[in-house]
């Protein structure tokens, strides 16, 4: 067995083991067993790093290892499950392991003193296990299974503080919304399986290439798979669960709802890019682009610091999806990688702020104020320098400022959209989505920074109790800030304006498997052409966005309130999140619940009560009639008549029943004699 597979097996099952140990014995272990999960994830991280090192040593773009076993075999129906390890897998494994380790370490302090501390770590381990399943899968079945398991751990972690109704609602919403996407995913899987007869990626690719599935079916199947990604990566119209998911503990938001799980959809799209038809990709691109812009429009009016980040995540995921749709799927994966680092960083920073705000509120016995509301913050820079710097780095990276990682990946995506639009001028909206979102991203991120860290504090009473977070919470911040620098992605080159590094070498564009689909070299050519334009435009856009935020929230030379008043309808739409939730409540939840009630009523109070029991009533009615005839006519008159006459006869004959045996004998003999005489004569 290949060494990579062996490592992968350990990486896969170690968190599961930790989960099992934590679930059953966590409460009894010293320190509630957090070291079990943390130890497991650190070993995983070590192995992931060594796999990564092995990949760099190989430095082979076509590196791939695959190993599978038969999960079930019914003769003609066979499911094989296994691991597929190539460069993308290894990079993703490292991302998961890294962010997950950071999140574990961060949680030691963040979750300190929680009554279900051990449970929390067991859920984290379960998540890591499931996520690695998605990453390692070489087939749709394991992918789908891990997909749902990830949903489960997300459900459990969002609803971790289940005493709060909002938290448990959010968990449920996340799971159900994901299920909606999964239905499409499942239908896609079935379409592929029906046509190709196998679930494994390689058979899938071969089948598509051979034309076993083509045309509209392939498009529908591809869109089906994409539905899964829409659910998991919170794309419009299924984005509604992700902002609510912020009810979970912040390290969870950083790990699951920013860096890894929500990226699973993108990961899957990148993996299966080869089976997407042009039509399917167009849908993908539009949904992604729209989501990117739409979510950033909502983000600019959020008051809650985590909500800003949540909508920013939705928007960034939209970017990645958009990029997949335009064919620049490697750029999407690149953005996934960089985004994982800086967005986790931002969430950890936000968590740090919330943690100390919470602490401060606790000190002054204020339990009504929301510790996440940015209107209660301000001026935290001086009190929390490390948090400030790291969040600033993160914001710079996400806004696409040069020398930071986000610039490189964002640039590639925007270049992809430009290239696509230049080939298909009809779809000029896609780059507009992209650049518009980039502008807004820069704006709302710096709005957040300025509101939180700059100017004078809004609440002096809390401010006095604010202090920097402990070391274990600072460590992930510092580490991830460093990883948000461009240098780690351009090595062995040092050009901050070009992504020509190890990543570009190891992750090559490949031709689509769809006959007549996108070819690798045309994509790369397009990217190359649009590279400069995209870079310049994105720089301008980012500068504009940051500048606007600076004017509005730092210098206050433009009053935010006035702007809001000026565009009141738009402002209301944005602050109301475009009323998507309300819409769904109105056109989906309530009608479905009403339908359910109606059906239940129909079933129980009409169908059963009247139809089924009606049979009973009719039968009772009939039997009453028959019973009457039977009793009055046949029984009382006929049968009882016989009985009565017998009774009368009995009364007469009773006289001779004296009870004396000897008389009986006498009577019997007399009778015999009479009989004999009568017979003889």
């Amino acid at each position: 067995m290949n060494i990579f597979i062996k490592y992968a097996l350990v990486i896969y099952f170690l968190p599961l083991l930790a989960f099992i140990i934590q679930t059953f014995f966590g409460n009894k272990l010293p320190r509630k067993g957090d070291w079990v999960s943390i130890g497991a994830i650190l070993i995983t991280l070590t192995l992931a790093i060594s796999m990564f090192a092995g990949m760099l040593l190989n430095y082979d773009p076509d590196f791939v290892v695959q190993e599978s076993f038969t999960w079930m075999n019914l003769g003609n129906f066979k499911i094989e499950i296994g691991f597929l390890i190539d460069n993308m897998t290894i990079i993703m494994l490292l991302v998961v392991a890294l962010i997950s380790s950071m999140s574990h370490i961060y949680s030691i302090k963040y979750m300190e003193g929680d009554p279900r501390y051990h449970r929390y770590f067991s859920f984290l381990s379960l998540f890591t296990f499931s996520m690695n399943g998605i990453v390692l899968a070489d087939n749709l079945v394991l992918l789908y299974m891990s997909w749902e398991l990830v949903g489960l751990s997300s459900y459990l972690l969002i609803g971790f503080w289940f005493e709060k109704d909002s938290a448990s609602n959010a968990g449920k919403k996340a799971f159900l919304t994901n299920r909606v996407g999964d239905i499409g995913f499942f239908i896609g899987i079935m379409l592929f399986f029906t046509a190709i007869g196998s679930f494994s990626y390689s058979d899938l690719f071969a089948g598509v290439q051979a034309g076993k599935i083509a045309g509209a079916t392939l498009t529908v199947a591809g869109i089906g798979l994409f539905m899964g990604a829409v659910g998991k990566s919170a794309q419009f119209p299924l984005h509604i669960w992700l902002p609510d998911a912020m009810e979970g503990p912040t390290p969870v938001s950083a790990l699951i709802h920013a860096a890894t799980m929500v990226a699973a959809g993108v990961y899957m799209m990148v993996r299966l890019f080869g089976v997407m038809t042009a039509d399917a990709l167009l849908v993908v691109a539009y949904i992604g682009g729209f989501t990117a812009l739409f979510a950033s429009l909502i983000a600019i009016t959020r008051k809650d610091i985590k909500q800003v980040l949540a909508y920013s995540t939705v928007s960034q995921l939209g970017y990645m999806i958009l990029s997949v749709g335009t064919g620049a799927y490697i750029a999407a994966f690149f953005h996934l990688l960089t985004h994982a680092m800086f967005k986790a960083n931002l969430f950890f920073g936000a968590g740090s702020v919330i943690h100390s705000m919470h602490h401060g509120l606790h000190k002054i016995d204020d339990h009504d104020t929301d510790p996440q509301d940015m209107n209660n913050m301000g001026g935290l820079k001086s009190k929390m320098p490390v948090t400030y710097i790291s969040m600033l780095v993160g914001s710079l990276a996400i806004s696409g400022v040069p020398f930071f990682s986000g610039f490189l990946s964002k640039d590639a995506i925007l270049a992809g959209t430009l290239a696509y639009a230049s080939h298909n001028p009809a779809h000029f909206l896609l780059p507009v989505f992209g650049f518009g979102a980039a502008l807004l991203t820069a704006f709302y991120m710096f709005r957040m920074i300025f509101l939180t860290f700059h100017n004078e504090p809004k609440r002096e009473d809390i401010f006095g109790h604010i202090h920097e977070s402990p070391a274990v919470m600072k460590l992930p911040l510092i580490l991830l800030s460093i990883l948000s620098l461009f240098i780690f992605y351009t090595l062995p080159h040092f050009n901050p304006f070009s992504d020509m590094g190890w990543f570009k070498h190891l992750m090559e564009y490949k031709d689509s498997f769809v006959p007549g689909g996108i070819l690798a070299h045309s994509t790369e050519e397009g990217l190359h052409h649009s590279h400069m334009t995209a870079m310049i435009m994105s720089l301008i856009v980012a500068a504009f966005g940051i500048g606007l935020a600076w004017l509005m929230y730092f210098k206050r030379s433009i009053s935010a309130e006035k702007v809001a008043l000026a565009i009141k309808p738009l402002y209301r739409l944005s602050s109301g999140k475009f009323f998507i939730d309300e819409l769904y409540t109105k056109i989906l939840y309530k009608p479905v619940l009403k339908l359910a009630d109606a059906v239940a009523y129909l079933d129980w109070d009409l169908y059963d009560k009247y139809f089924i029991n009606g049979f009973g009533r009719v039968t009772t009615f009939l039997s009453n009639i028959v019973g009457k005839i039977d009793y009055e006519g046949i029984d009382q008159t006929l049968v009882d008549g016989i009985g009565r006459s017998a009774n009368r006869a009995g009364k007469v004959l009773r006289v001779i029943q004296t009870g004396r045996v000897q008389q009986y004998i006498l009577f019997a003999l007399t009778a015999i004699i009479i009989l004999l005489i009568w017979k003889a004569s």
Partner: protein
Amino acid sequence: MDTMYLSWLVWLPVAGMVVIAFIPRDKTEIIKTVAAVATGLQVWVAILLWLDFDSASGTIQFAEKLAWIPSFNIFYHLGVDGLSLPMVMLTPILSFLAVFVSWKTDRAVKGYFTLFLLLDTGMIGVFLALDFFLFYVFWEVMLLPMYFLIGIWGGPKREYAAIKFFLFTLFGSVLMLVAILALYFYCGQTFDMLVLIDTAPMALDGVLWWGISAIKVIWILLFIGFAIKVPVFPFHTWLPLAHVEAPTAISVILAGVLLKLGVYGLLRVNYGMLPDGVMWFAGAIAFLGLVNVIWGGLCALAQTDLKKLVAYSSINHMGYALIGMAAVIAASSANGSNFGAAEAGLTGAVFQMFNHGTISAMLFILVGVIYDRAHHRDINGFGGLAKQMPIFTAVAGVAFFAGLGLPGMSGFVSEFMCFVGAFPVFRTIVIISAFGILLNAAYFLWAFQRIFFGELNEKYTKLPDINGRELFAVIPLAVITILLGVYPGPFLDMIKETMTVIIDQVVIWGDMAVLP
């Protein structure tokens, strides 16, 4: 016939019953112990049977055949194959656990366990019987104890529920009896199922009743008989009522075993003896499965009584099995000889049958646990129990998530197989019923949230957590559920050969004729 496993399985509960008959009625502990020992031994025999079972063979194994009423060609004929083995495994396990579930029964304990063991015999007998007459006898033997168990030990509306259950089932069995007699007289006056499987398709070929093919008529008769047990949509209303009113252990048996008789009967009798009819009726089966899925899901979503919710979820879940069963026609030449899909669907249906047995049993046991403590089952009347009863919450979580088909649990695998199998033939139906999984998740999660999440209801601050005995009843089922969900291969290996035989039967006959 070296080992008479099957007779042991059938008669062990009867032996227990006889022993109980000699125990004074006030020695309840001894009575319960005897019942536990009898069913426990049955489990042991079932495990031995399973270990000895040759999964490479698709035919009947461990057959036992003795003349019973020779003048009518009736035999005491038992046997097991891949179709019945899962249920033969499940029945003793659930019976054994149900004894522990009903440990706290205090009303007429002797009568209760006597009837319970009789019920056990009836159930396992139906799965093992290979003679139609014997089959019918066991079928009725099972019905009567059930009537009394619901009617005497049930909830407030027990008499109504028991009568309804009884009439419904009796209606079905009468139709079934007619069909059995028709088969008997048309196919050489034999009740032997194996013989009928060989001869019936040929003997009934071309027979017309009132201008309709006799096969169709018999199919419908048998279908209604079995559909009531499944229960298939228009015949389902006895189920919520019976489940709600029955004592916990009986609900477990009802959902875990009795509902399986329908699917089992359809596969054994309808598919085996009237394969031509399958081609004709499969579409209807798939459609009814769809209705079951959606209707059951919607009804479950609207319930506030937890037990009723679980009952409707049974309807929902059996719909998947029906859809999987219908997939068998994918193998016919008209549908492109897709044997893979047929195997997936049919095996999935049998697997779903088993899984629903374990999962719904688990759910009912847990409902019983909460009912014992809170004395009501109103979902909205709980709240925040996760804080008060963490272990119970964890176990209930496993059961609920198994119910909503989470991967890693057996329910997912079978639902997946049913859908994948049926998809090539019944594309629209499968796509619509895929939304059933959404409903499925919705009602389970919503109920879970309302019961366990939120602030703890002050009424329940003193509620004790699940105790050892109850855990003992649930944990084995949870373990089975997870094991089969993680690696179903070996279990499916036992089933698959028999399924191949059934598929071949259907395909060979189904491809030949169009029924008038």
